[in-house]
Structure formats: C-alpha cells, structure tokens
C-alpha cells in the first residue's frame, strides 16, 4: 500500500528539516560568541540534504531525504580591534563567527515552511487511509 509509504517519506523529511532548524538556531545562538584565536571561533554550519532511494525498495518511485553531512562555512571570520575586551589577543583583536543572521533567518523560514508542507502531506494521507479503511461501511 503506497499510502503508508507517505509516512516514511514525509517523516524522513520532517527529521531532516528539524536538523536544519536545529543547526540554524545553533548558528543564531552563537552569532556573537567571541573568542581570542581563529581556531577556537565558532563557524556557521549548514546541513547538506540528499535523496534516499534505497530505504524504500519495494516502491522505486518513492524518495525520502536524509542529512548527508553538516559542513562548516568557509567564509572568513570577522576580526575586530578591541584592546579593552577581556578576550582580546596580544595584538588587541577579537574574533567573531562568520554567521550571517539574515541568511540564517531566511533558512529558518524556509525550513519551517517545508516542515509544515510535510506535516500537511502526512495528515492528508492519514485521512485518505482512514477513509479507505471505512470503504463499504
């Protein structure tokens, strides 16, 4: 019954989108985390999505989603001259993460919309399944 497969497919998308939301909130939370060296500074993370075809072998048409990897952004860190800052290094610089709050907000909205779409797909399929079970009554 392919309607039951919708739960697998949309469920995998829900978990992938929630990982994306988690990563986004982690980025936003650490947007102003100051450190005194380049190596210790937080870098923005982004999940990479990939299609899963193997898990649903009996229906080759159905494709779920998984988070293939979470990669760190390669953009340059922000460096600021603040000699009075307690975290400043010997040259008087502090390092701030390369998180772009605008990009993160856009990511968050996109993730939450996709999440809602998948919840709706699950709800509709559940109603259709229940209606099919009641067939002929």
């Amino acid at each position, binding site marked *: *019954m*392919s*309607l039951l*497969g*919708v739960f697998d*497919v*949309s469920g*995998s*998308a829900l978990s992938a*989108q929630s990982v*994306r939301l988690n990563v986004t909130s982690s980025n936003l939370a650490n947007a102003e985390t100051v450190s005194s060296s380049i190596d210790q500074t937080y870098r923005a993370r982004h999940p*990479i*999505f*990939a*299609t899963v075809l193997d898990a649903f072998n009996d*229906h080759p*048409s*159905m*494709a*779920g*989603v998984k988070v293939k990897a979470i990669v760190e952004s390669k953009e340059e860190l922000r460096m600021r001259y603040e000699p009075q800052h307690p975290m400043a290094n010997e040259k008087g610089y502090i390092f701030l993460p390369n998180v772009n709050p605008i990009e993160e907000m856009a990511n968050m909205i*996109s*993730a939450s*919309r*996709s999440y809602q*779409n*998948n919840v*709706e*797909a699950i709800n*509709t*399929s559940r*109603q*259709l399944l229940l*209606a*099919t079970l009641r*067939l*002929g009554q």
Partner: protein
Amino acid sequence: MRFDLDKAMGIHEQALYVRSRRTSLIASNIANSDTPNYQARDIDFKQVLRNVAGMNEGERLKMTQAGHIQPGGMSAQDAELLYRHPFQASIDGNTVDAQIEKAEFGQNAAQYQSTLHFLTGKITGLRKAITGEP
C-alpha cells in the same frame, strides 16, 4: 449471467491504486523540495488509466493472425514515471515547485476521495442486490 467479483468494481479499483501511488510520489516531491539536484516526478493519470482500460474504439489495431496482440490491458503497477517540467530552474538543480506540488497533492487527494465514493456506490449496489432490500 456469470458474476465476476473481480470485475464488479470496474476501473475504479485500478484508479484507486494509481491515485494512491501518485499521492506517495507527490509526497516524495514535497519531502525533497530542498534537496539539491532532485528531479520532481509524476504519473500521467489519464494515460495510465487509458493503458489499463485498453485503447479507444477507433484506435484498436486490426488483428489478422492469432499471434497479434492488442495494446492496452496493462497493469496499473506498470505506470510510467515522468519528470516534471520546471517553470523556472533552480540554481541547485532542484525542479520541485512547492506551490505546484501542494496544489497537485490537494487535487489528487480530492480525486482519491471521489474514487472512494464511486467504490462505495458500487458496494452499496452489490449489497442491495444480495440482500434484496429496496
């Protein structure tokens, strides 16, 4: 007249199968709306049902020998998967348009329910015939 329960439901049984298959296909598209390089897929419902039901009267092939076969009579499971043609290509190679998929999903769900309605009608008719109630 011989009664065949397999054929009592007519084309609606196959239609229900294709509809449910389409539901999961469009759900896959929605699930992969943010996956790079994912190609949205769909089934041409009209074409599949035509293949299942056999072709129209005018399109039948002339059979002059015993070995000739008529097209059609395909099973609903053999439905061909097509690729959706994107209106605007996405920069990451994804061809899912969330609005279109949502609209198709809603339409397909409504059509699934109408197929269920037809089947309920058939079952009610059969039940009336069996019990003899008016």
